[in-house]
């Protein structure tokens, strides 16, 4: 898994056309991305390689001889590719005409293997510079290397760069100015493995290289953290603390955000003179944005914790401990990290599948990720469970609400594993199995800058989602629920007193466009016990799950703006065979809960799936099959709970 996080996604950089391009190549964990961030600052841009799903990172670097474009190629151990990411590296190097030079980033603590990659890259016959990272760690662990002699043996410039120190990055920046001046070896290194071993051995001896002693600190920590008993216990304790922190620490911040938006809503209602406009600002814009913004603390915390775990090296250990369990679903340890992230949000989870070398594992994990209980489901669950059982009901020592919540998380995880197993079998029939390997980084102190960049990027992506998809849907929805605005004549003709605002809103809602849609699809959801208003909520939640809560809020506010929750609880079917009965009966709530466990209600997730797989095929398959499964499981839940109650 990549040690550092790319800062990207910002505004495209105005890279002058015709500026020389230089590619960064290196194995995962060699410190390539840290170097890239150090060189380009916060001016990186992201994109995709044409036709494939691999992200492309490039940034501008100003040198003495003008700007150049540095492209950070995906981490790879070899140019003999076994994954789409790795294929890109060989392809980019093959199109040598477009590159002015290559910088190979090599971890000095593992120089022998790094030279193997250098030998392969040099076959591209491009001007090459080797950057040695972690030289400080090599020396600390009793190894040594002489970069100057190593450079002479390799026939290229070798620059030691220590992460976090400007000096090395600055001297690299000076070197980058003139790729045409870089020395080249007279004869390219061999490619045959046996000859490479001999070549590397000779170069290492000439470079006065002595390998590092095993990292004793890492060894001692692993002795405990990977101990069959203690290691397992610590793992579960860590995971428990992980979620405890996300939910407990975030709660007060979320309370603050909720209060702030409630206050703003009141302000809008009372201070905007046009009544419908006030309602629009308060109910559509502020409620919509506020209802989603409450997740920001959780998402920020999740990324703080994940990047701390990753930066310290523990996340790789977690993947190692979970590998055997993940293998039962046909996946590998690294998929655990993707699924773990999906418990906050499927989007980073799906993005984390990039660390999986196997395309089949990626696909299976992507199909499983939306089933993990993401934080967007949380407000829906809280709302529905609150209506299902009062908070003081206890089942033995545990609260009933908490137990149901836990059960839903468990159901999500079990369904995700089943789904991964299923899709692995579907897509995994042909072709050879990829080898499983995972490098264990030494334990290191997480770098603050890396953590901050990771959190900032995640929050920025989330805020973009709010200001685009969610804002647009809530506004459209408000329009569908409240338009057309009824004139007094029409209201009087229908027997509604224009002065009674509650009656007016109820009438408007009942005759709105949304109501028409909700009624039109009523036959589909009738067996699950949903009425047309719930249908509107379900449809609106296709944009994003949490929209369900704000929609039901708008619906209930129309009935009783003072106490929407009570209004929701007492809501009755207005028409159809169940007219007069309460809508939110235990079987219907159960059906809704289960529906939300399975249904693929998140446009952003579908969009990310499209981006990562390069085709609409997989998001479409996910949407349709999860919709069918959701309906069937919800029907099952409705029936079972109906029998029990």
């Amino acid at each position, binding site marked *: 898994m990549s040690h550092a996080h790319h800062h990207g996604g910002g505004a495209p950089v105005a890279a002058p056309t015709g500026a020389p391009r230089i590619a960064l190549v290196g194995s995962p964990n060699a410190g390539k991305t840290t170097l890239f961030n150090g060189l380009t600052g916060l001016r990186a841009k992201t994109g995709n390689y044409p036709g494939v799903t691999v992200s492309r990172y490039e940034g501008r670097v100003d040198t003495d001889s003008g700007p150049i474009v540095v492209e950070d190629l995906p981490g790879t151990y070899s140019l003999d590719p076994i994954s789409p990411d790795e294929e890109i590296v060989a392809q980019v190097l093959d199109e040598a005409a477009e590159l002015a030079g290559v910088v190979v980033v090599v971890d000095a603590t593992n120089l022998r293997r790094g030279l193997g990659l250098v030998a392969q890259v040099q076959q591209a016959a491009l001007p090459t510079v080797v950057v040695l990272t972690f030289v400080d760690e090599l020396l600390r662990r009793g190894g040594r290397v002489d970069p100057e002699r190593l450079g002479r043996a390799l*026939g290229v410039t070798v620059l030691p760069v220590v992460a976090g120190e400007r000096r090395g990055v600055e001297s690299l920046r000076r070197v980058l100015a003139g790729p045409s001046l870089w020395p080249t070896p007279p004869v390219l290194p061999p490619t045959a493995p*046996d000859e490479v071993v001999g070549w590397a*051995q000779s170069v290492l001896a*000439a470079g006065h290289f002595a390998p590092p002693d095993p990292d004793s600190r890492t060894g001692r920590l692993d002795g405990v953290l990977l101990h069959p008993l203690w290691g397992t216990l610590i793992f579960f304790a860590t995971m428990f603390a992980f979620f405890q922190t996300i939910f407990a620490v975030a709660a007060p911040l979320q309370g603050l955000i909720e209060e702030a938006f409630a206050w703003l809503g009141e302000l809008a209602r009372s201070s905007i003179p046009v009544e419908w406009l006030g309602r629009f600002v308060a109910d559509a814009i502020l409620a919509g944005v506020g209802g989603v913004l409450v997740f920001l603390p959780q998402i920020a915390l999740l990324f703080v914790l994940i990047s701390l775990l990753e930066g310290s090296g523990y996340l790789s250990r977690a993947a190692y401990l979970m590998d055997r369990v993940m293998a039962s679903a046909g996946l590998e340890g690294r998929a655990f990290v993707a699924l773990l992230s999906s418990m906050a949000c499927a989007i980073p989870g799906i993005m984390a599948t990039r660390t999986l070398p196997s395309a089949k594992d990626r696909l299976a994990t992507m199909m499983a990720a939306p089933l993990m209980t993401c934080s967007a489901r949380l407000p829906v669950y809280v709302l529905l469970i609150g209506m299902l059982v009062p908070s003081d009901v206890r089942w033995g020592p545990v609260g009933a609400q908490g137990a149901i919540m836990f059960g839903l998380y468990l159901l999500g995880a079990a369904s995700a594993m089943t789904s991964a197993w299923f899709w692995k079998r579907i897509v995994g029939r042909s072709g050879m199995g990829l080898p499983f390997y995972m490098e264990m980084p030494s334990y290191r102190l997480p770098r603050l800058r890396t953590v901050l960049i990771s959190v900032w990027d995640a929050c920025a992506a989330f805020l973009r989602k709010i200001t685009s998809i969610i804002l647009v849907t809530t506004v459209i929805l408000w329009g569908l629920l409240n338009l057309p605005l009824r004139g007094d004549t029409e209201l009087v003709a229908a027997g509604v007193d224009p002065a009674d605002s509650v009656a007016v809103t109820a009438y408007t809602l009942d005759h709105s466009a949304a109501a028409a849609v909700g009624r039109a699809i009523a036959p589909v959801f009738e067996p699950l016990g949903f009425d047309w208003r719930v249908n509107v909520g379900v449809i609106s939640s296709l944009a994003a799950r949490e929209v369900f809560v704000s929609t039901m809020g708008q619906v209930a506010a129309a009935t009783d703006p003072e106490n929407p929750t009570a209004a929701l609880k007492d809501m009755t079917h207005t028409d159809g065979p169940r007219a007069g009965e309460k809508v939110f009966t235990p079987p219907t709530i159960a059906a809704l809960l289960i529906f939300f466990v399975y249904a693929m209600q998140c446009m952003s997730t579908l969009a990310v799936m499209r981006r990562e797989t390069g085709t609409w095929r997989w998001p479409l398959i996910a949407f349709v099959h999860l919709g069918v499964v959701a309906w069937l499981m919800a029907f099952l839940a409705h029936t079972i709970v109906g029998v029990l109650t």
Partner: protein
Amino acid sequence: MTRALHPQAVPGQPSAVRWVVDVDLPVGRVTAAPGTVGPLLEYGVLTRMFVERGGVWTWLAPGQSWTEHGPRIRDALAAALDLPGWEIDEKSDELLGLVAREILDGELAGYVASHGGVITVADAADDRLTLDFGGACEDCPAASSTLHERIETAVRARYPRLVGVERVGGAHHRPRGWLGLPVPGRGR
């Protein structure tokens, strides 16, 4: 597993490559070689070839490129080093000069530079090496002992027939500070 071997460029001589490799052969100019190196030498693809302790020097015919022939020559050399049939002229002042220059530009370059000096090869004849100690080395007592000794040891390790190292230049030009006083700090 093949032999530990890597090529190194020779500064100022694009047609030459020094192969860094452990060799167990007499040191000197190669007149005939076994394996596929033999024909390369015989038909003039390789115009000259020397063996020293720790390396083999090869020159490619004019107009030929190392990029093209390099891999073939590397494989041929790696295989031939284990074969019998090498004929080597064991005395070569040219090789002595090359080795000395390589050591001064490479292995000891940092050490010489740290003494603020520039040392060049003035002559190599009859297995004797004459060096020109330029720059600050002239003044430095270390130049006559430590530096001199280190150069001699390093060259002898790779050209065992070395008889001795002499120096020229030195005493003619003693840089002095203003008013002809010795420059402080130079005596280290």
